[in-house]
């Protein structure tokens, strides 16, 4: 049930307790209890909206960051420093040819370039960064940015 409730809230954080109760067949008090548990266990971290930031003039970029660890520094230590910058929208340690995948958001490309060159690149552990500016977004957090066309007849038997 926990997973079902989390799935529904991820789909639409504005579902009311009674909506979730009706869709899962549980009663409202039980759903309220499950949501509290999910919050306490840090499974439900927040209730943000999916926004098309480009329409509000924001610029986004993905940055691949390669780091070098030493005896006293692990990935967690580096992540701890990077995640604190408000320009950092998401931060993930990934497998593959680089270590961290960082999503940045700012008011302009210059701002992002400046942020990387002044805040990220100078970090002692950072060996290399590769920046990809986002040209267009088609889907984010499961949401399609332009609804697929419904070609069905509007009314059929």
């Amino acid at each position, binding site marked *: 049930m926990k997973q079902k409730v989390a799935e529904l809230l991820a789909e*639409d954080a504005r579902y009311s307790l009674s909506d979730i109760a*009706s869709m899962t067949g549980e009663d409202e008090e039980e759903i309220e209890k499950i949501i509290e548990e999910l919050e306490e266990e840090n499974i439900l971290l927040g209730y943000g909206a999916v926004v098309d930031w480009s329409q509000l003039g924001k610029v986004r970029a993905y940055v691949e960051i390669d780091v070098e660890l030493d005896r006293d520094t692990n990935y967690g230590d580096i992540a701890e420093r990077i995640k604190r910058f408000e320009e950092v929208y998401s931060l993930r340690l990934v497998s593959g040819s680089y270590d961290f995948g960082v999503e940045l958001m700012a008011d302009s490309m210059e701002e992002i370039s400046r942020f990387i060159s002044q805040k990220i690149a100078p970090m002692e552990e950072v060996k290399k960064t590769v920046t990809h500016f986002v040209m267009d977004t088609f889907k984010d957090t499961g949401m399609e940015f332009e609804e697929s066309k419904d070609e*069905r*007849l509007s009314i*059929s*038997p």
Partner: protein
Amino acid sequence: MKIAERVNKVPPSGIRRFFEIAEELDNVISLGVGEPDFPPPWDARKAASVSLERGYTSYTTNRGKKEVREAISKYVKKWDLSYSFEDEILITTGVSEGVDLAIRALVEKNDKVAIVSPSYVSYLPVTIFAGGDPLLVSTNQENKFKISYKLLEESGASDADILILSYPNNPTGAIMEKKDLKEVADFAKENDIFIVSDEVYSELTYGKRHFSIASLKGMKKRSIVLNGFSKAYAMTGMRLGYALGPKEIISAMNRIHQYTMLSAPTTAQNAACQALESRDEVQRMKKEFDKRRRFTLSRLDKVGIDCFKAEGAFYLFPKCPRNNDETFAEDLLKEEKVALVPGRVFGDEGKGHLRLSYATDMDDLKKAMERLERFVN
């Protein structure tokens, strides 16, 4: 130019007028769609496109491709049905053709055909086109839109030659369980009635498993089961269905089919085997429908609209909050831009109801329910 009387007897579908109004308006949220809002399973689409790429577009045998009939023979075992791919299965152009073939193959002039009301729009016209005499068996919310021995008796169905069953039902969403169908089977045996059972929504039942009347003892020889790929595999436009029945009747249906249709669409047949294997996608779609069904039932309840708790298909059939379902649906469409289908389209017993299809995404469903609430209050 003279149009044949049996055609003139049948009025145009009542859905047409609503369709035209809806098409004129912008930003209409339609809860009037009788087909899933999902694409067909990916493997089925891939199989269709590969077959087109290779140019496999010739006719197939009249009865349909052997491997498709074999796959269907294996698949229907899940409903405890056993039909030989060789002579007991016919691949049709959608269930619609199956209904037409079954009725034309079985109905003599003035034979009585019992039809459950409300039900899908084609049974009555097809009966009239075939020269049959329709006999309506009226169901309602009080009897959960099911038929029973008693109801058949009271409706005068003992005189019927054929009974067309359609459960899970469009437009009510009602289902018939084994115990319900046993009564119908007993009635059919006692009165020597042949059953044509349209089971196209068989995959879409919620909480209870579909049951086919033909799986009851002694019923295979007096039943034609019609099913297809439109609803379970979201392949409406691909037009693919199948008929299961005694070999003599399948052969008679095939005789009409070979002269009027020749064979069912080849590209659809080339996608059929892959569709039948795509169980996971069907389950995902069904889970989503069930969620929407529960949500919509709960919202209707909050708005104070009385609605039967449908357990099948993707329709709800609430009572209309005003006297006339037709004017209600028209006003709702014009004022709030929400399209529902007036219940009367599906037969007189549908009057005073509205058909609500939840084959639309949650976002639109939520908005539509808000608009409906505003309109009603």
